[in-house]
């Protein structure tokens, strides 16, 4: 049996989606299926027949990083980078529903993603910057 995660990574060679824990705790494998963010490690691929799946590779348009990706870059929200695709997908799902989330809504949207390095502070800043339209203003120290 192949999980959606395996099909994405091995058959589609879309290795941006990562496996962290393999049981839905860490969110590294997050992708968007029909508009909702899910853990692709918990989905048998046959269960998503006919669904639309968006992975991190689908965020950029014509090789132009999306505002969210640019914010992650500008605010230093990626460190080792292995949790980053999952974080981006959770944040993307949030912004699809709610373009201007407040701080608590961001915290709730990222509650299913763990970072070990850990860049939570910067991840929050980056998503907040997209929410407030400030991604082109340089981030500030302190």
């Amino acid at each position, binding site marked *: 049996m192949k999980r959606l995660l395996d099909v994405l990574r091995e058959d589609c060679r879309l290795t941006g989606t990562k496996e962290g824990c393999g049981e839905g705790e860490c969110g590294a494998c997050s992708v968007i299926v029909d508009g909702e963010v899910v853990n692709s490690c918990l989905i048998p691929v046959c*269960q998503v027949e006919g669904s639309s799946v968006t992975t991190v590779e689908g965020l950029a348009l014509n090789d132009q990083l999306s505002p969210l990706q640019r914010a992650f870059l500008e605010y230093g929200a990626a460190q080792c980078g292995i949790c980053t695709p999952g974080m981006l997908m959770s944040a993307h799902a949030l912004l699809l529903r709610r373009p201007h989330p407040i701080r608590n809504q961001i915290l709730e949207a990222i509650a299913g993603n763990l970072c070990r390095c850990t860049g939570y502070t910067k991840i929050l800043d980056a998503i907040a910057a997209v929410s407030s339209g400030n991604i082109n203003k340089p981030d500030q120290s302190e």
Partner: protein
Amino acid sequence: MQKFEYVSPTTKEQAVALLGENWGDVEVLAGGTDLLSLMKDYITTPRRVVNLKGIAALSGVRYSASGLRLGALATFDDVLSNTAVRRNYPAIWAAVEGVTSPQIRAMGTVGGDLCQRPRCWYYRAGYGLLAKDETGHALVPDGDNRYHAILGHNSGAYFVNPSSLAPALIALAAKIGVYGPKGARQVDAAEFFRAPGGDGEREYQLSPNEIVTEVLVPAPGGMKNATYEVRQREALDWPLASASVALKLTGRNVGAARIALGHVAPVPWRAGAAESALVGKAVTEQTAAAAAEAALADAKPLSRNAYKVQLARVAVKRAILAAAG
């Protein structure tokens, strides 16, 4: 993971016809948040997996004058986004909100929440539901039981029921709709769960060829209700103890009460003594604390989980105070 046959019926009749006579032979898949891990770790090795997601009749959240219907396939998100649930059944809403991962909320279902298997780490390591080693020695009583039961473990099952919804459903006198070869039946939520006697049994009152189809919650009828969970983290984390309370109030006075605890026993734990302690009294910090005391009067903590008695008391007290508003 062992190979299996995957089938995706579109009606409940087809689904039950595909189920087996014995537990474990066939497993039911809905949100997948538990089943895939169990299969990956060879805790269950079904020859067939029946995907229920294609059965449209099992989905949806509907509120009407007669009450609330949660389809077995309704996701946590479906429940959370329903304003009638939030307004009338805060006990249910808060229980679902406690599942903090958006991913799990999008995938996890009502039926799956009720039928998920225990999180006991001995069970998940392959020592069986009753957690015995190869010599038959029970591992929990003198092992690391910090997350195990403090009530209702006389039968030898020491795990705690992991359902988020069950305590709230019991407090709200909900019924669980079941469908099998003999047709549909309803079970009181309070009667749905059981402590199994061994690995050939399950933790709920279903036959191997039955599925949960829906949950029916009576109209609130003025029952004020709330859930309080003690969780350590904001990240996805199981409650260490939880309590759901439904109160019929006249002013501050309690006319009727239903109280159920989660994560303290192999079944969601109805706290009759706490209900009795509260009925006829005004809800205050003191009466809520006294009810909480009564709820845990029979607690028998294991070697490492006495702290859970305290946490369960706090959950009961805070849920009562929250319900009373």
